[in-house]
């Protein structure tokens, strides 16, 4: 029931007024009843008084008669007139005092007898010579009897008045009892009303206000799940529902914020991975693992674009159910520009597929596994170049939201950054250990590596050989064709060396036109053979303008030394090989000399 507060209060007030009016009305009635009783009692007392007066006058009337009989004075007639006038006045008043039948009946009788009495008095008053008159004496005696009878008759009024007094007393008693009962009833009603009012206000005003107050406190303390159940049907209920709505909204916002904070935290965790390693493969592995676990995503993949083949291949994956699936995925390749992955890779626009069954453009083989119902594909790029895709998969449809898209994009950015960092690291590392011109390892790396290799050779008691070679008459070539020409020759030399040596061999530029090759697991004889082969290849190699060199060809001199056989440490080995090279130069160049 919807009743506003003002109407409730007005209703209560009206009820109070009604009760009060009843009280006032009944009080008025009681007062009126008492007034009536008072009035009645006044009349009754008047009746009693007048009755007494009348009786008095009846007796009084005997006086002038008596005197007349004694004196015979006719003046007693005037006295008679006065008394009879007074009597009639009293009697007239008595007659008008009540319309009661009984009263009027007595009045009629009294009237008749009082006239009779008066006539008898007049009879006596008009007797000539009354003094000592016997007849008059007799008349007087009968008059006295008559007066007594009359007084008794007038008592009839008295009896009625007494009855009335008795009745009135009963009435007053009854009225008093009744008004007491009324007063009790009304007092009861007032108390009941007051109690009702108290409980009503408590139930519908105080209690809900307290509830609101407490509820607001609870919500303010952070318990956003709290709801107020106020059903008063008025403004307080609206207020409570507004509070509830506010709490719902706050709760939603809080949840959203918690989610965002969690995501930020997850992102922070991912970004932390970046500092753990610069190895691209390891980075990707860690990132997909983290994304899968932190965001509760069943499968996460990183695909990379192979620049040469323009294909997307799976670089890293996490969360696969079985090894089979992982292997299957690992082998999958998607053409850039074809299919859903290819399209994202070429357009750079992320895709959020809430339900794969409703997406017609997805081929079955593009869905990771049959259970997958929703997926998200986000590209990542560095300087506008798309490097690959970050893909997430979930089994339940509609499990990705818009928010996830932005989150994935943030992660993808991290992936791109990580990959770029890894690439830069690798590049920097390479720059540090290679020679800028030839791309071969530099002198420093060579020395460090040689020591490592010697250590290993010594530990496992394996052979190790070293070749040092120097381009013959390189100064001549430089002088003839300039430094640029010389540099080209050096690059060409490095290329030939790289192609000639085995995978396990390490070639480095030792300095100027000198090169070194570390041959692990190689005996002295094998090293000499290797050096000889190198010498021959270079001699035959069609270097540009090699005919301008003395002897008509670009040749090298090579010195060979072998660890343990020729030397016991790195420095000694280099020295031995260098000495051998020196001897090769001395003995006519374009030859191999072993230490």
């Amino acid at each position: 029931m919807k009743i506003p507060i003002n109407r409730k209060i007005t209703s209560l007030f009206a009820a109070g007024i009604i009760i009060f009016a009843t009280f006032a009305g009944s009080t008025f009635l009681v007062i009126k009843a008492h007034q009536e009783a008072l009035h009645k009692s006044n009349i009754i007392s008047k009746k009693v008084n007048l009755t007494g007066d009348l009786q008095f006058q009846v007796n009084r009337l005997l006086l002038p008669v008596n005197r007349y009989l004694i004196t015979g004075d006719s003046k007693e007639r005037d006295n008679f007139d006065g008394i009879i006038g007074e009597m009639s006045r009293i009697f007239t008043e008595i007659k008008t005092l009540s319309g009661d039948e009984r009263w009027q009946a007595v009045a009629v009788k009294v009237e008749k007898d009082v006239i009779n009495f008066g006539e008898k008095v007049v009879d006596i008053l008009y007797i000539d010579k009354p003094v000592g008159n016997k007849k008059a004496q007799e008349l007087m005696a009968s008059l006295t009897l008559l007066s007594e009878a009359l007084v008794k008759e007038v008592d009839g009024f008295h009896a009625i008045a007494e009855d009335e007094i008795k009745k009135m007393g009963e009435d007053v008693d009854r009225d008093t009892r009744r008004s007491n009962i009324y007063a009790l009833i009304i007092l009861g009603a007032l108390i009941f009303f007051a109690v009702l009012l108290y409980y009503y206000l408590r139930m519908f005003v105080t209690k809900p206000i307290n509830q609101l107050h407490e509820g607001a406190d609870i919500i303010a303390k952070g318990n956003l799940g709290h709801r107020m159940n106020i059903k008063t049907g008025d403004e307080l209920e609206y207020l409570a529902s507004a509070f509830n709505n506010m709490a719902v909204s706050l709760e939603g916002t809080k949840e959203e914020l918690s989610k965002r904070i969690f995501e930020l935290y997850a992102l922070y965790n991912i970004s932390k991975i970046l500092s753990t390693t610069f190895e691209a493969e390891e980075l990707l592995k860690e990132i997909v693992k983290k994304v899968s676990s932190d965001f509760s995503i069943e499968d996460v993949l990183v695909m990379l674009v192979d620049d040469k083949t323009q294909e997307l291949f799976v670089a890293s994956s996490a969360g696969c159910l079985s090894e089979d699936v992982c292997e299957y995925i690992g082998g999958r390749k998607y053409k850039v520009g074809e299919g859903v992955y290819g399209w994202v890779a070429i357009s750079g626009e992320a895709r959020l597929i809430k339900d794969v069954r409703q997406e017609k453009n997805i081929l079955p083989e593009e869905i990771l596994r049959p259970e997958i119902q929703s997926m998200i594909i986000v590209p990542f790029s560095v300087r506008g170049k798309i490097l690959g895709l970050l893909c997430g998969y979930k089994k339940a449809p509609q499990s990705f939201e818009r928010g996830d898209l932005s989150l994935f994009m943030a992660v993808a950015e991290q992936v791109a950054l990580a990959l770029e960092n890894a690439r830069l690291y690798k590049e920097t590392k390479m720059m540090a250990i290679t020679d800028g011109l030839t791309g071969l390892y530099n002198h420093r790396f060579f020395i460090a590596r040689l020591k490592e290799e010697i250590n290993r050779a010594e530990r496992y008691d394996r052979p190790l050989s070293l070749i040092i070679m120097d381009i013959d008459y390189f100064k001549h070539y430089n002088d003839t064709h300039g430094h640029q020409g010389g540099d080209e020759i050096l690059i060409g030399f490095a290329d030939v060396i790289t192609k000639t040596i085995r995978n396990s061999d390490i070639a480095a530029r030792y300095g100027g036109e000198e090169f070194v090759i570390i041959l692990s697991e190689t005996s002295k004889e094998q090293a000499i053979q290797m050096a000889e082969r190198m010498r021959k290849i270079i001699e035959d190699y069609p270097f540009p303008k090699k005919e301008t060199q003395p002897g008509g060809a670009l040749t090298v001199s090579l010195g060979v030394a072998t660890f343990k056989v020729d030397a016991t440490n790195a420095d000694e080995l280099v020295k031995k090989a260098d000495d051998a090279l020196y001897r090769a130069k001395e003995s006519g160049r374009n030859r191999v000399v072993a230490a």
Partner: protein
Amino acid sequence: MKKHIPTIIFLSSFVALGTIFAANLYAEEIAIIVNEQGPLTQASEAEIREIYLGNMKFAGGTAIVAVHYREGSVKDAFLSSIVKMNSREYRLYWTKKIFQEGGALPALQNSFQLIVSFVSKNKGAIGYVLRTELTDMKGIKVVATIQRP
């Protein structure tokens, strides 16, 4: 002049007797007087009777107040000639009347002067006096004259 004395005495006595006789004749008349301002200008004997029996109580919107001599021959003459009752009957009549109908007995005054004074002071008053006594008419007027029987 002396010889005329018996004649004068005779004539004088005659005149005196005549005067006394005339005065006696005149004394038999009763005048009904009312207040000068009173509503009555004339009254028949019947009307006067009704007034004194208390049956005619108003005239021209004014309550009529009848006044009697307390007692005496004028009152007896008035009662017998106009009301046609003797004093006893009149008392009986009024005794009965005031008990049955209420109201007051007619007023009583002791002397001529008091009656005239009463009438001249009360607008509705009506009274009776001997015609011969009536010399000063201030405040009163005569509405009827009746012969004493």
